[in-house]
C-alpha cells in the first residue's frame, strides 16, 4: 500500500522517523480534525518531539525495558479508515447469556456491519471515533484530550498526535445502557504493525455503562499497540469497565487509561492479563467530586518471558471518596512483573479512604516482580492503607491437599485458582464472571492458547476473512 512507512531502530531513530512521518502525512492525519483537535495534536506532537520516549532513568519506567519496541520495522497505516466488514464471518459469540453490543476494531480501525456510528433509541451513541469527529465535533472537542496527560514522556502525546480511530461512546444523562458494550481489538497483519487506537467514553449524569474491552492478536507476527482511552463518569454515574488481554508473545501493548469521576459516581475497573509478550497498563484516576467510589482490580498470569507492568495512580481531589486497589499476579518461568500504585490524597480531601494491595506468587526462582505501593497524603482525616506481598504457594496448604489424594499438579492449580479468585469473584456481570473464571482456569492449566478466541467473542479459530489491510 502506497502510504506504508517503514520505521526502525533505537529510540532516537524511532522518534525521528515518527516525527518525519507526522510531518510528511500532516494533511492526512489532520483530515477529520476540527480546529481544536488540530491544535491538540500539534501540542502533543511538540511535546513528543521535545521529550521523546521514556528511558530507564524515567521514574515509572525503571523496571520496564522498552528497547525491543524500537527494533522492528513497523508499519503505520493512515489509509484504511473505518471499514465495512461482515463481522459475523469473523466472530460469533460463544458465551451463552452474554448479550452485548459488540463492536470490533481491526488493526486500530473501526469495523462495522451497517454503520460506523449507531445512535440507540435512548440517545446513546456507539461507534467510530474517526466518524464521531466528523459528525459530533462539539462532543469530541469538549472531551477528547481533556483528561489524558500530555506532560508525561512518550506514549500519550504520541498517541494524541497520531490518533485516527477507536471506540467512541456517548451516553446522555439519565440513561442506563442495559446491555454491556463489548469492544474487541484485533491485531491481524502479515507484517509488523504499529497501532495507536484512541477511545473516548462519556457517561452522563445518573447514567450507567458496562464496557468490556478485549485485546487479541490473531497472528504470531510482531505488533505494537499504543492505546489511550479517556473515560468520563459524570455525577452519580456508574461505569463497570473490563479489560481482558490475551495476546501473542510477539505482541507489545501499552495502554493508558484515564478516568475522571464526578460527584457521587461509581467506577469498577478490572484488568485481566492472561497472555501478552509485553504488556503495560497504566490506570490514571482523577476523583473530582465527593462521595465517589472506585474499585480498581487487576489480575495477571504470566509465564515464559512475558512481561507485565501495571501502573496505577489515584488522585483524591475531593473529600469523602473511596478508592480500593487490588492487584494480584502469578508469575511462572522467567516472567517478570511490575506493580506501581500511587495514591495522592490532597490537602482538602478530608475523610478520604484509600486502600491498596498487591499480592504476587512466584512459581519459579527465575520469575520476578517489582512492587511499589505508595501513598502520598496531605489531608489529616483519612483512612488509608497499602501493602504488598511476594511469595510462593503455601507449602502447608499444598501438603494438606496432597494428603487427601490430590496430585501435586491439581493441588497447585486449586491454590492458584483460589488466589486468582479473589479478583475474579468481584466481577459483577455474572456470565462474564463465569467465563473469565473458566478462562483463568484454562490459563492456569496451561490449556489456553493465545489463538484461542476470547470467551467473549469468537469461536472460529481462524478468521474466515479479514481483509489484509497491510500488504
Amino acid at each position, binding site marked *: 500500500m502506497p502510504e506504508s512507512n517503514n520505521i526502525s531502530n533505537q529510540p532516537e531513530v524511532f522518534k525521528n522517523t515518527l516525527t518525519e512521518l507526522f510531518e510528511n502525512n500532516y494533511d492526512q492525519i489532520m483530515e477529520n480534525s476540527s480546529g481544536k483537535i488540530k491544535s491538540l495534536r500539534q501540542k502533543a506532537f511538540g511535546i513528543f518531539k521535545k521529550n521523546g520516549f521514556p528511558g530507564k532513568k524515567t521514574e515509572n519506567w525503571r523496571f520496564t525495558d522498552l528497547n525491543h519496541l524500537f527494533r522492528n520495522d513497523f508499519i503505520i497505516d493512515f489509509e484504511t479508515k473505518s471499514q465495512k466488514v461482515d463481522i459475523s464471518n469473523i466472530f460469533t459469540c460463544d458465551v451463552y447469556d452474554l448479550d452485548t453490543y459488540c463492536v470490533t476494531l481491526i488493526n486500530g480501525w473501526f469495523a462495522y456491519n451497517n454503520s460506523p456510528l449507531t445512535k440507540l433509541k435512548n440517545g446513546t451513541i456507539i461507534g467510530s471515533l474517526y466518524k464521531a469527529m466528523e459528525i459530533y465535533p462539539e462532543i469530541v472537542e469538549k472531551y477528547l484530550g481533556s483528561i489524558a496527560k500530555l506532560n508525561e514522556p512518550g506514549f500519550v502525546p504520541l498517541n494524541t498526535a497520531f490518533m485516527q480511530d477507536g471506540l467512541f461512546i456517548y451516553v446522555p444523562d439519565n440513561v442506563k445502557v442495559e446491555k454491556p458494550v463489548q469492544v474487541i481489538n484485533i491485531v491481524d497483519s502479515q507484517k509488523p504493525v504499529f497501532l495507536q487506537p484512541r477511545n473516548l467514553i462519556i457517561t452522563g449524569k445518573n447514567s450507567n455503562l458496562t464496557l468490556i474491552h478485549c485485546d487479541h492478536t490473531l497472528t504470531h507476527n510482531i505488533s505494537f499497540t499504543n492505546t489511550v482511552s479517556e473515560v468520563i463518569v459524570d455525577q452519580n454515574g456508574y461505569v463497570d469497565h473490563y479489560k481482558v488481554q490475551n495476546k501473542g508473545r510477539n505482541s507489545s501493548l501499552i495502554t493508558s487509561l484515564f478516568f475522571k469521576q464526578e460527584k457521587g459516581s461509581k467506577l469498577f475497573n478490572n484488568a485481566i492479563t492472561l497472555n501478552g509478550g509485553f504488556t503495560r497498563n497504566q490506570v490514571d484516576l482523577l476523583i473530582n467530586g465527593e462521595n465517589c467510589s472506585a474499585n480498581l482490580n487487576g489480575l495477571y498470569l504470566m509465564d515464559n518471558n512475558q512481561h507485565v507492568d501495571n501502573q496505577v495512580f489515584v488522585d483524591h481531589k475531593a473529600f469523602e471518596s473511596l478508592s480500593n486497589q487490588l492487584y494480584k499476579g502469578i508469575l511462572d518461568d522467567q516472567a517478570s512483573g511490575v506493580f506501581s500504585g500511587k495514591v495522592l490524597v490532597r490537602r482538602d480531601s478530608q475523610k478520604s479512604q484509600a486502600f491498596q494491595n498487591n499480592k504476587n506468587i512466584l512459581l519459579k526462582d527465575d520469575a520476578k516482580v517489582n512492587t511499589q505501593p505508595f501513598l502520598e497524603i496531605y489531608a489529616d482525616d483519612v483512612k488509608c492503607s497499602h501493602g504488598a506481598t511476594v511469595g510462593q504457594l503455601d507449602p502447608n496448604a499444598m501438603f494438606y491437599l496432597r494428603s487427601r489424594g490430590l496430585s*501435586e499438579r491439581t493441588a497447585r492449580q486449586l491454590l492458584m485458582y483460589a488466589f486468582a*479468585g479473589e479478583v475474579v469473584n468481584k466481577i459483577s456481570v455474572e456470565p462474564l464472571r463465569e467465563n473469565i473464571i473458566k478462562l483463568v482456569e484454562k490459563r492456569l492449566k496451561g490449556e489456553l492458547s493465545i489463538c484461542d478466541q476470547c470467551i467473549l467473542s469468537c469461536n472460529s479459530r481462524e478468521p474466515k476473512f479479514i481483509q489484509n489491510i497491510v500488504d
Partner: protein
Amino acid sequence: MLSIKNLNVSVEGKPILNGLNLEVKDGEVHAIMGPNGSGKSTLASVIAGRDYFTIEQGEVTYMGKNLLEIPPEVRAKEGIFLGFQYPVEIPGVSMTNFMRTAINEKRKHQGLKPLSGAEFLKLMEEKKKLVKIESKLANRSVNEGFSGGEKKKNEIFQLALLEPKLAVLDETDSGLDIDALKVVANGVNMLKRKDNATILITHYQRLLDYVIPDVVHVLFDGKIVKSGGKELALELEEKGYNWITKET
C-alpha cells in the same frame, strides 16, 4: 497392615524418633500416648508423607509396600488418612470442590468411575449427618474462619467421606469440648470395620472413654517404651508420664 521397624528420624540433624517399632493389624484401634516432644506428631507425619524430616534408618511397610517410597497423594489414594493436629485454612478453595476432587482422584486410582455432582452431593449429605457437621461448614472455603472444634469435626467429616483403610488422628481430641469430643469419637466408632485400622495419637486419656483401643502405646523420647491394653491408658492418667519416664 502397617509395620514400622527400627524407625530413626531426625529433623535438622536433631534425632526425633529413635528406633520406633509398631505393628498395626486389620480391625485394630491403637492409641499412642506420650508427653509433649516425644515424637507423636513426627510419627504421624512420617506415615502421611510429609518431607521436613530425614529418615536415618528403618522401614515402614504398608499393605506389603515400602511406604517411604510413595508420594503422599498416592498414600492417600491407597487408603491412608491423616487427621491434622492443626488443619490448614485454605481461603478460596471450597470444601465441596476439594472433597469431590479428592474422592474422584481416589476412585480413579481404584479404577472406578468418578461420582457425578448429584451422587457426590448425596454422599455428602449422608456423611454430614453422620458427623453432625453443619451444612454451612461444608459450603465454605476449607477451614477458613472455622473454630478449633469445627476444624476438628471437619477432619472427621473428611475421614467419613474418604473411608480410609488406615486413619491416623493426630490429637484430633485436643481443644474439644465434650460434645465435639463425642462427635469425633462417634465418627471413629461408626467408621470402624474389620478391614480398617485407626491410630489415635493423643495426649489425654479422655478420648479413650469413648473409643476403646485394642492396644495402648506409650511413646517417649522417640520410641515406644511400653505397650498394653486399654487399662494402660487409665494407669497413665492416674500416675502421670513421670511414672513411665522413671521406669525407663
